[in-house]
């Protein structure tokens, strides 16, 4: 732990002004935003992040933490706590995949602290990233290499990686947001903007130290999830090494709208195996307009994993990913038909 300065941002405009030097949120940016603190403090204690200035955004909770369902969809303030959203009756009834993905994440203590905005910006759990005594980590030290490619990589990603970084995006909720085609509101020095959630995280390129498309000083203020029939018939399957308080080795968020036995619409988000929050578009296309049989679910799972690259210890995730998608599809199929019509 190193000495650092600490300032509270009383409102959004001050937050944006104080946060001009946050860069794009890379670990070595001299200024870091603090919301729930469950990632930042952790990485500061590990000496992975050594900010000179910490800007506490907690006062923004006053205006940016509400849960607002409407006929169009669900608006969630980015400073709402994970636990608060997971327990909300409308979220549980009409967007079960959101509630489940939050409820199955982390521990009760962390869910009580962590905010939604911070959750989607959670850093990878790559053990080489999280220990600065490893010299080679392109995510921490651009150009230094990747110790995980030939190292202990059982927990690493198989989808969307390249040789410069095979870290996986560890979160759950973002996977559900991918499936429900969520949108986000941002406010930054250049004003407000609105993005599809799917474009928040960067794809793997030669710059793994840049994880998102956030601009310097930008703060996530809200999430919007459109109201759909498939959101109501949605499920989050999280496969992990122990029953609770553990990251996924594979997860799937499936949202399904059926027309009798025929898939009218399906959305599939994947976690625990991808470089960034992942959407299995080709699997969705394969399933749409056809009966959802075991064989179709398996074929979709297979299709979703096309292009996956194992690095040895994580090879199993290619098969496990397929099985996880199958399981989530069949669980969604078994759910009662939703009340909301398309």
């Amino acid at each position: 732990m190193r000495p650092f300065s600490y300032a509270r941002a009383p409102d959004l405009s001050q937050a944006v002004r104080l946060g001009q030097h946050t860069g794009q949120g890379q670990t070595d940016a001299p200024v870091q935003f603090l919301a729930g603190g469950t990632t930042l403090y952790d990485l500061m204690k590990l000496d992975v992040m050594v900010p000179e200035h910490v800007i506490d955004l907690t006062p923004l909770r006053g205006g940016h933490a509400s849960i607002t369902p409407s006929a169009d969809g669900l608006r969630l303030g980015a400073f709402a706590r994970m636990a608060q959203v997971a327990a909300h009756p409308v979220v549980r009834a009409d967007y079960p995949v959101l509630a489940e993905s939050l409820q199955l994440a982390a521990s009760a203590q962390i869910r009580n602290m962590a905010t939604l905005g911070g959750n989607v910006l959670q850093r990878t759990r790559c053990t080489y990233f999280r220990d600065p005594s490893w010299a080679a980590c392109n995510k921490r030290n651009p150009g230094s290499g990747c110790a995980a490619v030939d190292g202990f990589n059982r927990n690493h990603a198989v989808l969307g990686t390249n040789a410069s970084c095979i870290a996986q995006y560890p979160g759950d909720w973002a996977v559900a947001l991918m499936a429900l085609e969520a949108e986000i509101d941002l406010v930054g020095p250049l004003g407000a903007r609105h993005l599809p959630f799917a474009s928040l995280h960067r794809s793997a390129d030669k710059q793994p130290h840049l994880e998102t498309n956030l601009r310097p000083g930008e703060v996530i203020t809200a999430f919007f999830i459109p109201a759909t029939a498939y959101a109501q018939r949605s499920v989050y399957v999280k496969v992990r090494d122990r029953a609770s308080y553990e990251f996924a080795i594979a997860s799937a968020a499936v949202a399904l709208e059926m027309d009798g036995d025929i898939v009218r619409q399906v959305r599939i988000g994947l976690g625990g195996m991808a470089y960034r929050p992942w959407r299995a578009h080709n699997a969705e296309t394969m399933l749409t307009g056809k009966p959802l049989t075991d064989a179709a679910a398996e074929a979709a799972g297979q299709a979703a994993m096309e292009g996956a690259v194992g690095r040895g210890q994580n090879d199993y995730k290619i098969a496990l990913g397929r099985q996880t998608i199958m399981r989530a599809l069949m669980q969604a199929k078994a759910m009662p038909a939703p009340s909301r019509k398309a």
Partner: protein
Amino acid sequence: MTIDPAILFGTPTPRVDGVAKVTGAARYGSDEPLASPAFACLVTSDIARGRITGFDLGAAKAVPGVLDILTHDTVGNQVKTPPGPDGGPTPTTLESDRIWHDGQIIAIVVANTFEAATEAVSRVRVSTVSEPPTASFDSPGTEVKAVAAARNGSAPKEDQTAKKAAADAAFAVAPVKVDARYATPPQHHNPMELFTTTCSWDGPKLTIYEPSQFMWGLKSAVARQLGIDPSDVRTVSRFVGGAFGSRGNVTSRTAWVALAAKRLGRPIKLVPTRAQGFTIATFRAETRQHVRLSATADGKLTSVFHEGWEVSSRPSSYKVAGNKATSRLYAAPSIATAVNVVHADRATPGFMRAPAETPYMFALESAMDELSYMLNMDPIELRRVNDTQTDPVSGLSFSSRLLMPCFDQAAEKFGWKQRNPKPGSMQDGAWLVGYGCATSFYPNNIGPAAARISLMASGRANVAMAAHELGTGAYTTIAITAAHALGLKVVDVAVQLGDSDLPPVPAAGGSNNAASTTHAVVKACEEVRRRLAEAAVAAEDSPFHGADPATLTLVEGRLQNANGQSEPLSRAVPRTGGRLEVYAENLPAGLPASAMAQLYDGRAMMSRGDSRKDVTAYAFGAHCVEVRVHSLTREIRVPRVVSAFASGHIINPTTARSQYMGGIIWGISSALHEATEVDPASARLINTNLADYMVPVNADIPSIEIIMVPEDDRRVNPLGVKGIGEIGIVGMNAAVANAVFHATGKRLRELPLRAEHLL
């Protein structure tokens, strides 16, 4: 010994220190209040093999509040290297420029505050010359040495070559056989309390506050390292936040902190990080094992061969040699074993709960399960067919052995009868269901111990001994023993433990603690009774004047005779003086008199259940476990366990149940969760934290039922006390693996068992 253990033991009693523990009043090593301590933090190596060529300490020393930095350049050979867990050589730390393993201590920063010390550690720059390290079994550069199974690593006492040839011959002609190889991973104890050390000097007198399983051993060992008189060293550890073997032997940090405190002239407190706990103390080494079993068509074993390979550091030959135990579990006419130590660039391993049995019983009990399927025989029946009341290696009788009653009672409660023997045949919704079982056992060890008891006229007693409260409930078992032996209530007995100024007891390891301490306490209580009785019969004002002192007993705070005549302690005690104080030593049968003297010298000689001259003494148990494996995604979960144990007289069923459960949970953890990952190229440990080093959470452990099978065994020791600290974990990993086979039809021979192995 005249006191009947039935009077002493068996009453469920809440922990006498429970309130202190849950309210924070219990003082652990680093909680001890000290005037103006400085704070030490460790710098550890981030290469596994090489030499230090220099330090740049400028930035670290510039951190405000930094007081001193110890390196091999500045302190070098001022402290002797402590012995390894086997008493032999082990890697150096600040004694030289050599780096033997990842995370080795290479410098110690001392500062006015913990924060300053932590920051300065991150600013120490060290230059090293790295050599290609050897990580583990399959790495280039290992050095493999065949060793004897004997505990001290000496030459084999008996030639295994002939035994191996006989076992091979029996194997060759047997109709049914298993020939399989198994592997277990490195594991770390991760006790809740970190590996702290606080040292304070008062002139030549050194006090060390440190969680320890052996107060007198720590005192002597550190004195030898520092070259000072052991009588100038006091060790204090009133409560230990878990130990599991990790605190049985002295580690390098202690003497260095003592030296740092001496240099500074101030007390120093070291609270290392969780990650450092993985490399500055010991661990359970990874093993590879080869088991060959052969049997007749009706399941009788005709040969057992069990060979092990265990990783150790370059200098240390430490090993657990668990086949010394597994070879004597089942009747077989031909038994052979072999052990190999595989040296790599790793820290020296050490004792970890059921050190020998946890890894080796995984292999044997998995192999027995494999054999049962080949025989088409129920695995419990296979154990019954090969059960024996005679140690098949030594030919001695077991002091007692209730293995099959344990199996029968566990199986009954578990509902073993509902098991369809066909693998993969049981299912509940999307989950495959499997039932598995395994034998558990552990040798009964006892060592010399001393205790001091004071009895006041008020009817209150104090018991003092340097015994160890590791979370096992030692304060309570000792209070129960003394109270019942003195005819007092448990609340009227105050117990002092964890201080080397108190009478010595052996290291709290190998499940000897209960037997060793209770025998010393009872001996002291017997002497208290004798002195009260002799004073009473000599006194004219006593109702017992002129009676035979042997007829008097202590009951409900009074001295009484067989006719029910009695007098209160308020009259009986003052006859002996202001208070009655007794110091007693107990030397267990079979140990030489020198064993007691050695104890005062910090060496614990044990009477070991596996090497006695009269009987072989073990406790036995049986696990029945249900696992569930998801039919698609293959996660493994353990919804319930029923285990039965016959382990002599149970002193306190309340804490015994907790101890058994703790062992079982750790066995599940050993099967499904725990593994320290070693980076193959750098020989560095990867997951040195409790997020990445998995242990079960509450949701992983829904239901555990414990059956304590009554057992009255006076051949094991006079009080019939068998240890229970380790037996709970033994065999549990195999029971889970066997259940996974039953659920899926897939035999997993390498721990931990994970979803990827079943896809």
